[in-house]
């Protein structure tokens, strides 16, 4: 299916140039293009101006400080997977990145693009939510920082305003000892969108953070489950109580990939697996990352 819309292509070298181009109402940002090109082919996007941000200096790469990792807007999922810093400091981001699409797509698709596309099944969101990530946004006048918890406003909708550009995703590093797990359910292993995604971050002193994707219009933190678990040692009885709360946290729909009943059932099962795996990893009883759950 060819792209039928007509547009001008620009590849600015500086941020001010890009921001000037983005003041045009019909403009659209191009990073990896793995969603944008599909949407243009399907007629869901018909930009007049395409602004390729890959030529702007400073939009790629990682910056590690004592308290956070800054991930530039042009960093691809393959770069996340190949990064030792990501693997060691943010193992769940590493783990979820490996479940995104396929190698050829990950070589191109960016983390920033993933959260800008904001489809409900995006694999990176649960990890970003439990890590309390912040989106760095540059507008015509100022830079602002949007917590990921406030970023997703609807299906394919975000807090990004017209004329703004995401320049980085900033993830604070957890000070406490942590164990984490991202559990994804696809219809088969290999390339597929999530039917359900669950992220569990278990921190020392029985602090837990839980987030879901693909089971509601936006990916969300499961605050009721977190409150239940907080301060308690994980055991089977507690896991059973947490599973009871799942229907209050998510609102799955039936679509081509699965029914809402199946999603709801699997969200409970996967929460239990994720909690056990994250706690085992925190205790050092399991590899920090990897496919084999406890």
């Amino acid at each position, binding site marked *: *299916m*060819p*792209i*039928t*819309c*007509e*547009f*001008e*292509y620009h*590849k600015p070298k500086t941020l001010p140039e890009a921001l000037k181009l983005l003041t045009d109402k019909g403009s659209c940002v*191009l990073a990896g*293009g*793995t969603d944008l*090109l*599909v949407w*243009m*082919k399907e007629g869901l996007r018909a930009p007049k101006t*395409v602004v*390729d941000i*890959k030529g702007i200096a400073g939009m790629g790469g990682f910056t590690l400080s004592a308290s956070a990792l800054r991930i530039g807007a042009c960093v691809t999922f*393959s770069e996340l997977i190949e990064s030792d810093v990501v693997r060691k400091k943010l193992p769940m981001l590493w783990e979820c990145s*490996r479940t995104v*699409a*396929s*190698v*050829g*797509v990950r*070589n*191109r698709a960016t983390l920033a693009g993933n959260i800008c596309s904001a489809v409900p099944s995006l694999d990176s969101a649960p990890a970003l939510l439990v890590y309390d990530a912040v989106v760095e946004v540059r507008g015509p006048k100022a830079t602002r920082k949007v917590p990921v918890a406030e970023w997703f406003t609807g299906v394919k909708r975000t807090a990004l305003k017209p004329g703004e550009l995401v320049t980085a995703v900033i993830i604070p590093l957890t000070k406490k000892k942590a164990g984490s797990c991202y559990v994804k359910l696809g219809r088969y*292993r*290999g*390339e597929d969108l999530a039917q359900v995604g669950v992220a569990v971050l278990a921190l020392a002193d029985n602090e837990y953070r839980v987030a879901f994707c693909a089971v509601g219009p936006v990916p969300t933190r499961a605050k009721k489950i977190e409150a239940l678990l907080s301060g308690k040692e994980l055991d089977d009885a507690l896991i059973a109580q947490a599973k009871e709360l799942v229907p209050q946290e998510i609102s799955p729909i039936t679509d081509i990939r699965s029914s809402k009943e199946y999603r709801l059932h699997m969200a409970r099962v996967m929460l239990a697996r994720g909690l056990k795996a994250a706690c085992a990893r925190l205790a050092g009883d399991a590899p920090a990352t990897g496919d084999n759950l406890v």
Partner: protein
Amino acid sequence: MKKIAIEFKLNGTQRQVEVEPSDTLLEALRERVGAKSPKCGCDRGDCGTCTVSFNGKTVRSCLVLAVEADGAEIVTLEGISKEPSKLQKEFAQRNAFQCGFCAPGIVMSATELLGKKKKPTREEIQEAIAGNLCRCTGYTPIVEAIEAAANGGK
């Protein structure tokens, strides 16, 4: 829309072409410079049969604009080596393909894998070609051919 002149290296040779901003790299390769090994399958990045190497990394050429390739180095199946590679020989010997439509993409993905890992595990092989769909073989002979190429060295 005004055409844009771009220049890129294709299989070691510098090429200049004029493209529409809306042309994909796949369209430019097949229709403007005659590189016919990348195929148009799903045209949305799911099937992998349009896979080419872009600055050393495989991409879905149906999801890249041709203009993005300006200044890039592109390698298609035609350009991976003058003689059939060890990998290609293993594919042929084991009848790893039937209709052959997925073959260029799978060879490109497997070549990228073997460039990164000399002895990939079966799981790593499966992951490397997870985005390349084959409807004939059931994948077993393909995975075995990649394993054999890795074990046989170059």
